[in-house]
């Protein structure tokens, strides 16, 4: 990476993300997060949160001015003092992306700031490189060259993919899901067990109390020779197992802990098989980068870390605050784009930027 500006003042970036359920805004100074606000968390100070219903969370148009003001207030900064505006332009739902993009573009034009359109997935991939406001984190050193080439493993409700990262800005997708994403499989199987929505976190919680190896699940795609994933088959298998066990036992608690354990084991094994295959096919890599909401599971983040370390690789994973969708990671990817000169200054060009719902790395 080009470090020509490492000795000068780090740029201040304001970033937005409205690609899915949450409206978020963050202020960064280089890789340092000065403030990060996510709509679903605005009211959530207590340990028990999450009462903000989905229907309200998705109202980006209503949320964005509040979230924007809150991010500036927490960062103790005025918009005039920000150097760049960054925003997700894909992938995501078109109608959601448009709201964030429209707001951010207007801001850049109104206050005469250069604009950086950001790929949401690039944000997730490098979310482990975010530093706190004081500059501490997993990889606080300015020079990141020693981390590359690397592999990126992105797992969320929407994505399950493996990326070859030659260096920051140069990517090749090695494999992806052919149907459902891992997070989606968790939530849908959680639904079968009546865990409500999202059921994934409850499923992982229950798995902690279950026994391994007592219920057979097929390991998805273990014999395919590529690096793609597929989770629709195991979903069907789970549906049938669930019906069978319900007939056999009187209470769900008689079997569901083991069910969750064995289901989670099968999913982790499927990820492991593909990740190890990708590592073996790319012996030049030095680091595994992970990102996405599924890494909210401590067990998954730990087990992938074990794979990385046992292969002699560095492991770059996000702090708990940056695993789900957030704007801090968008600001970070924006910063990397600044370092590479990928910024748009011409106001007419900024106006022309359109959302790309199917954007890929």
């Amino acid at each position, binding site marked *: 990476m080009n470090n020509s500006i490492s000795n000068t003042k780090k740029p201040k970036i304001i970033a937005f993300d409205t690609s*899915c359920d949450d409206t978020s805004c963050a202020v960064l100074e280089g890789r340092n997060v000065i403030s990060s606000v996510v709509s679903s968390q605005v009211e959530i100070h207590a340990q028990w949160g999450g009462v903000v219903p989905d229907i309200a969370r998705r109202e980006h148009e209503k949320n964005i001015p509040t979230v924007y003001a809150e991010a500036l207030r927490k960062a103790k900064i005025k918009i005039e003092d920000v150097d760049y505006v960054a925003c997700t332009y894909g992938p995501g739902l078109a109608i959601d992306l448009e709201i964030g993009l429209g707001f951010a573009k207007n801001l850049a034009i109104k206050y005469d700031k250069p604009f950086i359109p950001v790929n949401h997935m690039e944000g997730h991939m490098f979310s482990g490189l975010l530093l706190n406001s004081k500059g501490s984190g997993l990889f606080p050193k300015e020079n990141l060259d020693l981390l590359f080439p690397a592999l990126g493993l992105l797992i969320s409700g929407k994505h399950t993919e493996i990326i070859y990262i030659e260096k920051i800005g140069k990517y090749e997708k090695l494999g992806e899901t052919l*149907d459902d994403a891992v997070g989606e499989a968790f939530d849908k199987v959680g639904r079968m067990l009546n865990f409500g929505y999202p059921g994934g976190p409850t499923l992982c919680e229950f798995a902690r109390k279950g026994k391994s190896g007592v219920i057979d699940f097929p390991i998805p795609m273990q014999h395919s020779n590529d690096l793609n994933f597929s989770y629709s088959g195991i979903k069907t298998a789970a549906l049938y197992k669930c019906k069978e066990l319900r007939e056999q036992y009187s209470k*769900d608690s008689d079997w569901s802990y083991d069910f969750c354990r064995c289901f989670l084991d099968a999913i982790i094994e499927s990820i492991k098989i593909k990740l190890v295959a990708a590592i073996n096919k790319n012996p030049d890599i030095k680091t595994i980068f992970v990102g996405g909401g599924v890494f909210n599971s401590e067990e998954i983040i730990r087990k992938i870390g074990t794979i990385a370390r046992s292969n002699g690789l560095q492991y770059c994973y996000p702090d708990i605050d940056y695993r789900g969708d957030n704007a801090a990671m968008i600001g970070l990817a924006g910063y990397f784009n600044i370092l590479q000169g990928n910024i748009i200054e011409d106001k007419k060009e900024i106006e022309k930027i359109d959302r790309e*719902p*199917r954007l890929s790395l």
Partner: protein
Amino acid sequence: MIINIKSEKEKSIEKAVEVLKSGGLIVYPTETCYGLGADATNPEALKKILEYKKLRGSKPISIAVSDIDMAKEYVSINDTAENLYKNYLPGPITVISISKGNLVPPVVSIQGAVGVRYPNYPYTLELIKKFGKPITATSANVSYKPTPYSIESLIKNLPEKSKKLIDLFLDAGELPKNQPSTVLDTTLNQLSVLRQGKVQFDNALIKNKKIEETTTATVEETIAFAKEFAKKYLDSNVPCVIALSGELGAGKTQFTKGIGEILGVKEIINSPTYTIINEYPYETNGRKHVLAHMDTWRLEDGQLDNSGLIQHLENKDIVVIEWADKFYQEISALCDNMSIKTYKIVIKYLSLEKRSIEIYE
């Protein structure tokens, strides 16, 4: 005062109820550890709890009930919570539900959520039942001190000030060293809207003409059947809606893959559950088109209008909708108003692999 509950069961319960009624504090056994109890509806008693625990920040305190009926007096039990009570309780799980408004902080969070414990400890259940109201359920240790499994070790780690606040220790000897309870949030539950409008959908089908039906034995056969359907009925220049209905894992996304292949979509078509609408550009005879692949699984009542569906219909795209049953009336009305042709596809499980597929016009 310490009473052994094994040798003096009746007397200890009587004494405990007396203490609770007068706003005092008790230490009582549960299946996880010793808990600190006070009348959860008495603000003065709750103040004492906070004084005892010290340094708690804004973390709420759970309540313990003697049965689901008592829980229902204080919190709203939704489908997810009902499932947990029915299948897993009494047991070491704290179920978070929304308060009915008759409790005050610290047993209610800022968002109005309450953590409810229904402990699997018969003595304690009997005690709460006698008292007739919920009691607080927080571990009896002072913040940052070890989890108490015996009265002896608890007292050893107790500051004099806190010790004085306890009116009664109910001693059940050394408790097994079980993990603290699993905390499950049921307030995010969206189950109610996931109930399908199946009746409407099936009724609607009666009025429609069945144009194709088949049985498939593999995923490949399902895709092949979708390809036949697309070849015979779809034209890139004629907008239409393909409404898919079928259980989790039935093959709705697989069917869409077949349609995409015939239209000329080059990308991998995967599940749109999280994005809500995925857009796939393709070309026929040099003309650019978009296949819109939609999923209503996560949409709630009233959200269809803001999903982007209307924009795709206005653009005259071919739109495939998974879980179309949920919004069947709305979709059907939209298509009628805009004179857009609709196909309904019903996929049913016959066995783990086999599916029946019916197509209606």
